[in-house]
């Protein structure tokens, strides 16, 4: 690990000043950044610790809930309002990492965590995300964990977060602070697909920081489920995960929210499948059809073809749980 300077940010403004200089990075819980530094994937000259900034609040707003960027993953997952009104978020968080990690990890850090692709982590391997132009180790390599949606030959890595899958389904908005003030963007537009620039994970500019997320009120609380399929029962990244929220009235679906994890470079919202479900009766059949619609455009690689089967199965199961069929 390279030697670096450590600063503790006193204010949001001083943080923004610091990160506008090259080689400077924000550190929050450090659970991802420090690993990446140890592996030599990133080597900042300066770290700005933001954990003392007043961005930990979880507060109801007129139309929903505001969660500060520094609220801990564990705190959010156990927050009374979250559990009651947005159980999907609580479930998604609890499906991630381990209690120890969740006690350190922050909402902002979780959104900014980098892919777990082995080729990204190993600096002796080619990786367009780590070092643009070097190629993609996972293409033609061991790509069992990799994406089936929105890929380009340049990168087939997935975004590893569970929390983000929940927030994508819940129509959250990201609140970003920059030199010129605040801006807000829909959660689903925060992360991006690899395209020609797999090194860029999201739309946050280098001199911006996340200060929080807003979640609008909804009618999904009663019929929500987060289903994560993984290689062990806990403490493993998703092979496929599905966040499902349904608004059901008299056995008919009025609205649906669906997002998938472990399948794309960003939390993968299933807009078409959601549309299909509106007005349908709660039934395994319609869930299966929705799952088929969701799979349109999926493309597998040598070792992840199983996801073409696992993903629709997981969507169907998640919907069955959410709707109370199981």
């Amino acid at each position: 690990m390279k030697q670096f300077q450590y600063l503790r940010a006193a204010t949001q403004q001083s943080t923004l000043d610091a990160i506008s200089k090259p080689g400077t990075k924000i550190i929050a819980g450090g659970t991802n950044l420090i690993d990446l530094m140890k592996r030599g994937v990133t080597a900042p000259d300066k770290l700005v610790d933001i954990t003392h900034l007043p961005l930990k609040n979880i507060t109801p707003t007129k139309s929903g809930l505001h969660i500060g960027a520094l609220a801990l993953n564990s705190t959010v997952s156990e927050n009374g309002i979250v559990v009651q009104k947005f159980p999907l978020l609580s479930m998604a968080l609890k499906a991630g990492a381990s209690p120890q990690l969740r006690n350190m990890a922050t909402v902002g850090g979780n959104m900014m965590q980098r892919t777990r692709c082995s080729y990204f982590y190993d600096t002796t391997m080619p990786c367009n995300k780590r070092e643009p132009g070097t190629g993609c180790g996972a293409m033609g390599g061991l790509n069992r964990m990799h994406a089936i949606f929105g890929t380009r030959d340049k990168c087939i890595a997935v975004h590893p977060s569970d929390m983000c899958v929940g927030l994508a389904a819940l129509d959250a908005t990201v609140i970003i602070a920059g030199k010129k003030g605040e801006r807000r963007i829909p959660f689903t537009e925060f992360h991006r697909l690899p395209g020609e620039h797999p090194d860029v994970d999201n739309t946050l500019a280098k001199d911006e920081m996340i200060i929080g997320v807003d979640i609008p009120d909804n009618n999904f609380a009663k019929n929500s489920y987060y289903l994560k399929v993984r290689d062990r029962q806990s403490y493993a990244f998703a092979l496929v995960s599905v966040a499902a929220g349904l608004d059901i009235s008299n056995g008919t679906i009025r609205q649906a929210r669906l997002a998938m994890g472990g399948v794309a470079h960003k939390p993968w919202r299933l807009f078409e499948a959601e549309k299909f479900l509106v007005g349908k009766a709660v039934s395994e059949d319609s869930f299966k059809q929705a799952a088929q619609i969701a799979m349109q455009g999926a493309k597998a690689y040598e070792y992840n073809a199983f996801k073409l089967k696992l993903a629709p199965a997981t969507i169907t199961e998640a919907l069955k749980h959410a709707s109370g069929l199981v």
Partner: protein
Amino acid sequence: MNKHMENKILNKTSTLEGISRVDGRLKVTGKAKYSAEYSVKGITYGVLVPGTITKGSIKTLDIKKAEGAPGVLSVITYLNAPKVPGYQTDKPQAKGMLKIFYDEQIYFNGQPIALVIADSFERALFAASLVTATYNVEPHQTDLIKNRSNGFTPRKDYSRGEDDAYKNAPVKVEQEYFIPTEVHNPMELHAIIARWDADDKLTVFDKTQGIKATQKNIAQAFKLPPDNVQVTSPFVGGAFGAALRTWPHEIAAVLAAKVVKRPVKLVLSRADMFTSVGYRPLTWQKIGLGATADGKFVGITHEAAGQTSVYEDFTENSVNISQLMYASPNVTTRYKLVSLNVNTPTPMRGPGEATGAFALESAIDELSYALNMDPIELRLKNYADTDPLSGKPYSSKFLNDAYKLGADRIGWSNRNQKPGSVIEKGWLVGYGMGAGMFGAYRGSATVLARMMADGTLLLQTAVTDIGPGTGTAMVSIASDIMEIPAGKIKFDLGDSSLPPSPTQGGSSITSTVGSAVNDACKELQAKFQELNGTTESGKMDYVQILKKHNLQQLEVTTTSHGGPEQNKYAMYSWSVHFMKVLVHPATGVVKVDKAVSVADCGTIISNKTASSQIKGGTIMGTGMALMEEAVIDHRYGRLINNNFADYHVPVQADIPQVEALFVNKPDPYINPIGAKGMGEIATIGVAAAIANAVYNATGKRVRDLPITPDKLI
């Protein structure tokens, strides 16, 4: 019932539950010192630099930047390393342990090319990142499956009766099985502190399973009299075979301490652990199993090909279990090794047998379905009453009792012979079983037993305790014989200056050292009787006798080992594992709902630690079955998951209910305490039991481990 049973055998006075770990408090309060934790004056820190190619040689090495980095004392490479005297042989091309910093050759990816020594760990780590190398790269081979035809036969094929007789049997199974590389990954990283006390005197605090073996190996490498090498290792944070031998990093640390003339601490990183201290080798197997229509085995053919390094041949008993486990008139086994550009494997808990039992016990399960016969019944039909290999009688075998105990506890009667026929709350339910066996050994050990004036009994021997609770078992034995409370007994271990004991491996320590403790205590008692002029054995007031004779202490040093019984009987420990699993029909997720492991390993000396030992082995087998797999990208010859985020071992949620049961009948012949080994059999057969349960649940037979969800959807 064995007619020799009334013989001797430990007079057990301790409770059924057994005493608690004698070092438990030290461990949970952090007071137990592990190798890396000794504070040694003037300590320096070493960090290894792993090579990044898989085959070839080092062309150039640039260590200038590293040497100039703050706090760096030395950077050792093959170009500047002092010669290790023991490396100079008359056959330089002979295969053997990797010689570290010996020449420019690279045999596998991750092979150390340099060792940086600095005044702090962080500085050493940073400087290590500054070492650069260029290589002459040669094409490598790391894929066993691709290279299987290039294997060689390291030991003679075995055959009894007719070759490949299964082929002509009325009912037969012929299948291939595969296990990936599994890495021991004990929680404690391998660590050594090496300190030269004089030009020819050395002290090492070293993670090892063998105190005396490490002393001998290091003495040989540096051409020192063994007594001049002090090895200290009283606590070992798990090893599972990974610390059975002396590895190159240990030699490197001793070498480095010589170079910098200060003590050197070298702790492997988790990534280093994947390429430095062995692993269970990736193995291909094929079983041909034939039976008559009523389930009598006609023949077993078991073939295996395992991987080894190019510089060393590591063989294990993968196919031997098929020669031993069942009464089959015809058995053929063939074993091959394939030399690849990988580091050398090493025994991992249940070495060979765990690999072989996965194939054999899976095949038997497959046969049971082909015959439509209960798998227990099929095994009982082919139960061996005498050792099929040697024809000798068993010293003891109660495996059939174990079958019964386990079947009752798991609820075997709920099993439906038809796969995929039971559903509970949306999950497919399956039951499966797998059996295991492992040689029961007794070596030679010397124990000093000293009764002190205050009634404290001191026991000393140079054994290690890698976690099973050796100290606890020894105290328990001594407490029973001497009839004094466990709290009055102190067991010293982990120090090469103590009387010799063998390496802790092969499930032999309780049998070997326990017998020596038994014999030493009996001898000490006899000495007290003599002193006291009494003849009847049993409880004595040791303190009073010492006082009466004006003695501060009374001691004996006793060496104990087996005799002619070792050749007269076939000695094994046995196990059977029962599993109830749930499999999700849509997502392929497997949950072990309940595991019951039963061991037939003679007398249980210490019930608490024995239960933990069996449970631990069952959990390790669960990892083998469901998740453990070190994966190499063969294009690069490099591991892609050499860390605990990507290499999965079971977590709490994977192991909800594990029960350990014991037959607990003494073996009358193996040793005076009636106890046989249990560490290995705890893991042997587990993977098959789970694969068999998964088949019972789903009708899907997974023959390549691990059984991950993708293989079931």
